[in-house]
């Protein structure tokens, strides 16, 4: 069934969009990731204009992070103070990201910007996850292998402006979480992602937060930063497509429930290798688009008249 998207101004198969949302939902349920980093490139492949794809997927993330955050709030696994610091950084970063996004849009380079960000970040994350999970499988087979002890005191703990984060049990400077927030905000505006895939490792390894509050706290930040980014895109570029977002949300919500069930049945390490390969696959496709000579060297962009 073809459906005409009022903002994207293209006609797309509604079931294809539901399916895309569902697929990403299954993955996010299985792996516990937001899936924004997959949905945006998939929307490019379907023919949604990049600016609309980025803006609308931030709106889709609002839905998925809201339902997940509710569950974490109930279990009291959210560090609101840490979340607020990350959020302040995120709002600053998102604003900076959108200024950059709109500037490059006026130069006709926004596709390049978005593609480059995707190739770089998906590449890094994909390889890190692949190595991590291959190592984990090796360790499981060879229990004698030494495990690196986690450092509890690094440079992060020697910076000024220290604050007590009671829920996380930390007494650290606000500067590192603020910077992490800024980085994630920039990514949210440019890539249309929540940024959990950057924030979660940063919170664990850089800030030394306990794992049990990491997901809930990052969801708290993601919900508000993506809401803010959605508003920025909606008011400056008019590129948020409600109909597209709704189809993705409905598909995603149903998919996530199946993904959670599926995730419980598969082994965690193998699951992560699968996800890593998937991330690298999307990264490779985007990288080839940049590296190989395109079949059409010209492109048309419509301005206002």
């Amino acid at each position, binding site marked *: *069934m*073809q*459906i*005409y998207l*009022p*903002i994207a*101004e*293209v*006609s797309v198969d509604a079931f294809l969009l539901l399916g895309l949302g569902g697929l990403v939902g299954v993955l996010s349920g299985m792996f516990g990731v937001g899936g924004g980093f997959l949905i945006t490139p998939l929307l490019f492949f379907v023919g949604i204009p990049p600016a609309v794809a980025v803006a609308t997927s931030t*709106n*889709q993330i*609002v*839905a*998925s*992070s*809201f*339902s*997940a955050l*509710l*569950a974490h709030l109930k279990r009291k696994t959210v560090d609101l103070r840490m979340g607020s610091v990350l959020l302040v950084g995120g709002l600053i970063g998102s604003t900076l990201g959108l200024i950059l996004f709109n500037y490059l849009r006026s130069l*006709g*380079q926004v*596709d*390049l910007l978005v593609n*480059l960000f995707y190739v770089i970040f998906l590449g890094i994350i994909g390889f890190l996850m692949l190595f991590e999970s291959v190592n984990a499988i090796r360790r499981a087979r060879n229990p004698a292998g030494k495990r690196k002890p986690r450092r509890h005191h690094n440079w992060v703990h020697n910076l000024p402006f220290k604050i007590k984060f009671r829920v996380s049990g930390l007494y650290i400077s606000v500067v590192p979480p603020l910077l992490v927030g800024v980085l994630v905000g920039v990514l949210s505006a440019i890539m249309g992602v929540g940024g959990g895939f950057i924030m979660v490792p940063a919170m664990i390894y850089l800030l030394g937060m306990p794992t049990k509050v990491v997901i809930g706290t990052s969801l708290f930040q993601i919900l508000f930063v993506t*809401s803010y980014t*959605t*508003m920025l895109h*909606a*008011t400056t570029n*008019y590129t*948020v497509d*409600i*109909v597209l*977002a*709704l189809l993705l*949300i*409905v598909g995603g*919500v*149903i998919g*996530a*429930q199946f993904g959670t069930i599926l995730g419980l049945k598969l082994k965690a390490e193998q699951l992560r290798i699968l996800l890593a390969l998937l991330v690298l696959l999307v990264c490779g496709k985007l990288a080839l*688009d*940049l*590296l*190989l*000579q*395109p079949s*059409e*060297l*010209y*492109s*048309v*962009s*419509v*301005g*206002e*008249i």
Partner: protein
Amino acid sequence: MLRLLLLCLCFAGAARAETIVLGLSQDSVSITATFDGDDILIFGAVRRDAPAPTQSGDLGVIITVAGPDQRLSVYRKARRLGIWVNTQEVEVDHAPSFYAVATSGPIRDVLRDTSDLRDSITIPRAIRSVGTGVYDSEAFIEALIRIRGNADLYQTQIGGVDLEQDTLFRASFDLPANLTEGDYVARIFLTRDGVPIDESSTIIPVQKVGLERWLYNLAHADPLIYGFLSLIIAAAAGWAASAGFAMLRR
């Protein structure tokens, strides 16, 4: 319908020897939620006060349908530091968002270059760009026509106009799904020996309707409200999903 038109011919008087009487299969095009392109049929007849002249060359009919004008940028990619980047830009001041031209015969038989230049009938003539500063700007215009041609936004139908007995004509146009809103102008040229002897035009409004129109207008007129609406819908959907599945599990 056609017969009715012919009947009308008998009554009205005209100054010119041959003039156009025009009809459309539909007065407007509505973009609904399930819009998947549309067909539009343009038909008509040649009205004559006297029998058709025999020595003044062959009769030709050309029909064009043009969407609203746009200002465009056409970019060309080149390899920089190993990756393909947009490096050159040509601005096109006016290019129709949609343009279809149908003729009753080969272009050179039904239209002279001078008339094409004056009335901007063929696709390259309908696109205007000045002062580009790029030495091969023709290549950019050709690329624009090629890209839009592949998307069915620019169409040339040689022989697309059925002309019967030099009197009745009809042509059908496929409008693709990715139409731009606005007033589409249909022009009909009657030519003798490649020179227009009569011209007629009509406007076909293409508009989003219903929910599509409401959302589009809201997004542009009240972006703040639209933004909040999209957030509320997202949050409500997220909450409803988690609540719904929690109930199912119980």
